[in-house]
């Protein structure tokens, strides 16, 4: 077996199960490992396999959870809020239009400080209707107060979902977490993964102890009405919790690493030392970029943003301080601004610093347009060109003329 286990199995120690699984299945397995108690979800392509797999796990007695098959994503998130507010560990999954339909309630989940974990299978938004992958859906929810994590592999999808509960339920955080995995590219792809042993996960993630919950033996009100005298203080508490989340995300990731040998960081720096050209991206395309980087003679680095909310300004600055050109490849576009959201935020993060690399934005992969290795090479060559000359700030990659 080429797959590195975190324990050698000698002396009767538990071994992780190695299997070849879809990204969707990995997410469902994570929910099982975390003993989620209530699931409320509505099927939508390409998230469908997640809700199907969860139903199967429940049908086979492998997961003991109440499963509410709601009539819409709006109700899915609403039911999750009701269940979480009652003290249960809850899970849901959605995608694209479904996430957009949840929009209103996403704010409420975070505002009510409920540690809900949701997987989002990243998909383009209508119109025109398109079921394929890009990240416009979750990017459009960036201000909803959810912690947003983006994953590169199926393994990372599983591991991050497990980590998400520990982050969300931390008494100092109490924020919902959205785990974003690229629709189809991960959800429908099978590849080898290691499924941690359930007992090990139980050690890592203790049962959820709610801070506040609806219970007739200790009545309380949740979701009170805040007037101008009280509202702002709620908002700053959310922001403070987001800031505190960095430390918790880092610590949880390290603890997970000790358990499994796998950790991912707030950001991942790949080949960044002395790299003149640095690419930045989120999600599964990072893998393709890494392969291209390895095939090159010159030094090109990659900064993979894993934590998008809270936005890791410090880590970004640290990673790109020596780069001459920074190329941000992303699968979203802020219409009317003419650039991607990640690009804007990196640009804004740079303003107070003294680093002044050239910044290029690359919009690609919208609506499932494949980002080929040739596309990545093209991006790198545009970046190299920018070292010497002034060129357009934003480029659309893979666009048909």
């Amino acid at each position, binding site marked *: 077996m080429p797959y590195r286990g975190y324990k050698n199995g000698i002396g009767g120690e538990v071994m992780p199960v190695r299997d070849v699984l879809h990204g969707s299945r990995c997410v469902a397995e994570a929910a099982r490992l975390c003993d989620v108690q209530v699931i409320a979800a509505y099927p939508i392509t390409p998230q469908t396999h997640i809700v199907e797999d969860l139903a199967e796990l429940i049908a086979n007695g492998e997961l003991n959870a109440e499963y509410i098959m709601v009539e819409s994503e709006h109700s899915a998130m609403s039911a999750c809020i009701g269940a979480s507010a009652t003290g249960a560990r809850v899970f849901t999954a959605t995608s694209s239009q479904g996430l957009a339909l949840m929009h209103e309630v996403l704010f409420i989940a975070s505002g009510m400080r409920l540690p809900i974990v949701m997987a989002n299978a990243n998909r383009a938004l209508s119109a025109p209707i398109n079921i394929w992958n890009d990240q416009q859906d979750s990017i459009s929810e960036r201000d909803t107060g959810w912690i947003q994590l983006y994953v590169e592999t199926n393994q990372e999808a599983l591991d991050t979902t497990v980590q998400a509960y520990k982050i969300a339920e931390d008494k100092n955080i109490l924020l919902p977490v959205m785990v974003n995995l690229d629709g189809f590219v991960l959800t429908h792809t099978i*590849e080898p993964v290691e499924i941690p042993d359930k007992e090990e996960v139980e050690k890592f993630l203790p049962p959820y102890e709610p801070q506040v919950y609806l219970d007739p033996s200790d009545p309380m009100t949740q979701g009170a009405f805040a007037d101008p005298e009280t509202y702002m203080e709620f908002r700053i508490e959310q922001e403070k919790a987001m800031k505190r989340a960095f430390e918790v995300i880092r610590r949880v990731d390290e603890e997970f690493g000790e358990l499994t040998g796998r950790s991912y960081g707030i950001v991942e720096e790949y080949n960044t030392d002395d790299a003149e050209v640095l690419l930045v991206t989120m999600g599964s395309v990072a893998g393709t970029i890494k392969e291209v980087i390895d095939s090159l003679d010159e030094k090109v680095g990659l900064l993979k943003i894993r934590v998008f909310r809270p936005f890791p300004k410090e880590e970004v600055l640290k990673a790109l301080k020596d780069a001459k050109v920074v190329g941000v490849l992303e699968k979203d576009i802020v219409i009317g601004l003419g650039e991607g959201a990640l690009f804007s935020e990196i640009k804004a993060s740079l303003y107070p610093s003294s680093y002044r690399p050239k910044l290029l934005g690359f919009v690609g992969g919208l609506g499932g347009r494949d980002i080929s290795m040739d596309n990545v090479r093209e991006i790198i060559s545009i970046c190299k060109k920018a070292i010497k000359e002034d060129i357009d700030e934003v480029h659309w990659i893979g666009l048909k003329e």
Partner: protein
Amino acid sequence: MKEIRFHGRGGQGAVTAAEILAIAAFYDGKYSQAFPFFGVERRGAPVTAFARIDDHFIRRRNQIYKPDYIVVQDPTLLEVINVAEGLSNNGKAIVNTEKKPGEINLNTSAEVYTINATKIALDVLGVPIVNTAMLGAFAAITGEVTLDSLKRAVVKRFPEKLATKNSKAVEVAYEVAGGSV
């Protein structure tokens, strides 16, 4: 790394074939990956699926443009699409047809193999679903996966009754394609 592209029609199990291949490679101790061409194809429409096999974890996520192997499950596809597009000159094409390699026009300088998988499927399974037979032939012709792992993967992927029959289809095709059991 070896990249394999499967061509079939909706309902013929091309995606399943790619996945079984990936699972088999994993059983062989390798890394693998399989994914469909993400479409909204319904039954009967041409479908494409991809698989990759390597000694290291496979990081690339793009579609396969220059496959080392193509597996064509339905000969009628040759008239509709250029299945051999991008096929490596050192690669191999495996086509389900009763014809000989010389009798089909694949527009490639790669090696072309043919196998009458439909007949095997009808004989063994009783239905013309050729994906597992094609995998048997693939294993024999390319040596990229072992017959044992392929059969294990079939057992994992199918319910018991179907698994036994499909395992047999793999084995028969493997032998017909020149492999020795």
